């Protein structure tokens, strides 16, 4: 498949003193830089690096908050317990399922919404823009509640509206089974987070040079051909950044599941499993180990994305 892209333009390098000759000016600039950025950097580390190290440490103990006297060092046995427990694999499977389904649907839907926003007539553009921001800004718990109440067997309208569809009646209990629960969870997540993807894609669309579109049109390319060979290849960076952010975000899903099912019927995600171990069962050791494993999964996904898809975040950030 041939793709049409513009050659990369020369980036202007930030001017800096040549290596080896650190002038007084650049030395003081360096000091000032760290003086200004240091506090923010330190706070970020303090609120994340310190807790995760603490979690790693606590995961090595058999420690229940209700029974602090029997706290004992057990090495990696917490990890062994988790990794041999079907609960963990079930939660991981559910999390991966939700991540794959929501991100895939959101990418396609988000692209459609971005196209609509790009083409929206200037008269309706403010309305469209304000609307797309609303799902993004509404809190996840409210979105989860709205969707839950809509599908609920007592308070909902979905059953009576869609009773003409086979398999749906007034007594359909959406939250009674794993797959129907997951369907509603995914719907709520997709509604809430597609706008974010579509805004990123819209920014990517704006970077596709109009000249290329015109040239392809002159050459007789159909709309479909232009989409696949001009538009998408030219906004690859934006697509990848949107994918990476949403994948990591989806993998951490917690709020929607907590509100809708509280993990019932096998809908527990990894975050929810860690929460239940620590906060509900006060098993600090086991909960910490699940947290550390979740952290490792997130790191793995991020590194995988950056290595496999060559997502260059610094380039996407405009940072030379």
């Amino acid at each position, binding site marked *: 498949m041939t793709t049409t892209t513009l050659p990369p333009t020369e980036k202007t390098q930030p001017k800096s003193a040549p290596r080896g000759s650190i002038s007084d000016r650049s030395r003081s600039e360096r000091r000032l830089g760290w003086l200004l950025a240091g506090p923010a950097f330190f706070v970020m580390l303090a*609120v994340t690096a310190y807790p995760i190290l603490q979690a790693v440490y606590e995961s090595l103990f058999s420690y229940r908050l209700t029974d602090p006297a029997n706290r004992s060092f057990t090495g990696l046995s917490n990890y062994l317990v988790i990794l041999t427990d079907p609960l963990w694999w079930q939660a991981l499977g559910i999390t991966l399922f939700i991540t794959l389904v929501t991100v895939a649907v959101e990418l396609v839907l988000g692209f459609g919404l971005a196209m609509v926003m790009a083409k929206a007539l200037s008269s309706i553009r403010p309305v469209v*823009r304000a609307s797309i*921001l609303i799902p993004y800004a509404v809190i996840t*718990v409210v979105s989860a509640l*709205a969707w839950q109440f809509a599908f609920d067997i007592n308070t909902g309208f979905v059953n009576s509206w869609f009773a003409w569809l086979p398999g749906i009646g007034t007594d359909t209990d959406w939250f009674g089974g794993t797959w129907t629960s997951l369907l509603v969870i995914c719907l709520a997540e997709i509604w809430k987070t597609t706008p974010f993807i579509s805004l990123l894609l*819209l920014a990517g669309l704006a970077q596709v040079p109009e000249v290329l579109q015109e040239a392809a049109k002159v050459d007789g390319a159909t709309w479909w051909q232009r989409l696949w060979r001009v538009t998408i290849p030219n906004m690859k960076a934006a697509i990848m950044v949107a994918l990476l952010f949403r994948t990591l975000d989806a993998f951490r899903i917690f709020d929607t599941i907590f509100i809708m099912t509280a993990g019932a019927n096998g809908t527990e995600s990894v*975050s929810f499993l860690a929460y239940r171990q*620590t906060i509900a069962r006060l098993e*600090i050791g086991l909960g910490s180990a699940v947290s550390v494993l979740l952290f490792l999964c997130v790191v793995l996904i991020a590194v995988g994305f950056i290595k496999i898809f060559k997502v260059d975040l610094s380039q*996407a950030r405009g940072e030379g």
Partner: protein
Amino acid sequence: MSRREKTWWLIGGLVLVVYCLFPIAWIVSLSFKAPSDLSNGGFLPTQFTGQNYSDIFTGSASGLFLPALRNSFGICLIATFISCILAMFAAYAIARLDFPGKRLILTTALAVAIFPIISIVTPLFNVWRQIGLYDTWPGLILPYLSLTLPISIWTMSAFFREIPWEMEQAAQVDGATTWQAFRKVIVPLAAPGVFTTAIIAFFIAWNDFLYGISLTSTEAARPVPAALGLFSGASQFEDPTGVTAAAAVIVTIPVIVLVLLFQRRIVAGLTNGAVKG
């Protein structure tokens, strides 16, 4: 664009608006339903009632809701303020100075942004109990910084990079003092970026649920999203659905007002911070 094409995009726009607003319309409609009306199977109430709203403001549910609303506003505004101040200095350094470690700071911000919150909650839950920060405002403000600070640094440094800093020197050449040049030239140019960043940081803090339910236990510090989770779980009300819906509508009002007033800036802030090729 041909007339036909225009019509299609117009329909697309309408579909988009309906898609975005439908669940909100639904929860608003639900909040006006009387208990006997909740299971009417329809979208709209057969008779509008303000009972749910008086319940959360003056009635049976106000003890849970009003303190939570005050906590949410207080904690989110303080966390937003602190992270904007810290991010302002950091973003200035990143945008304007040349020093090693710039990339390190941006990469750290990214790493913190993708950090699974539950991995922070687990150890904090234990430590906060020991040092007395559990169920207090500072006990939530500190972890909220892990949510608001990274996005603030990213968004603000993207904004600051676009400021024509040469204008400061130009003003000084024209006879302004350093302070005048800063106040009259740089502050007006930087203010929109700082303001937009603050809105986005506030959205993120306002949205938090996991810290809220894990690190609080009473109305001393419990924020609204956590209280909403409890409405639906508690059985102290006959049917908490209507009351929960009303509370959900109230917490949605501030973000909708911000969106309506500052939509253009929010879009610029969100996309500036993430995609710039």
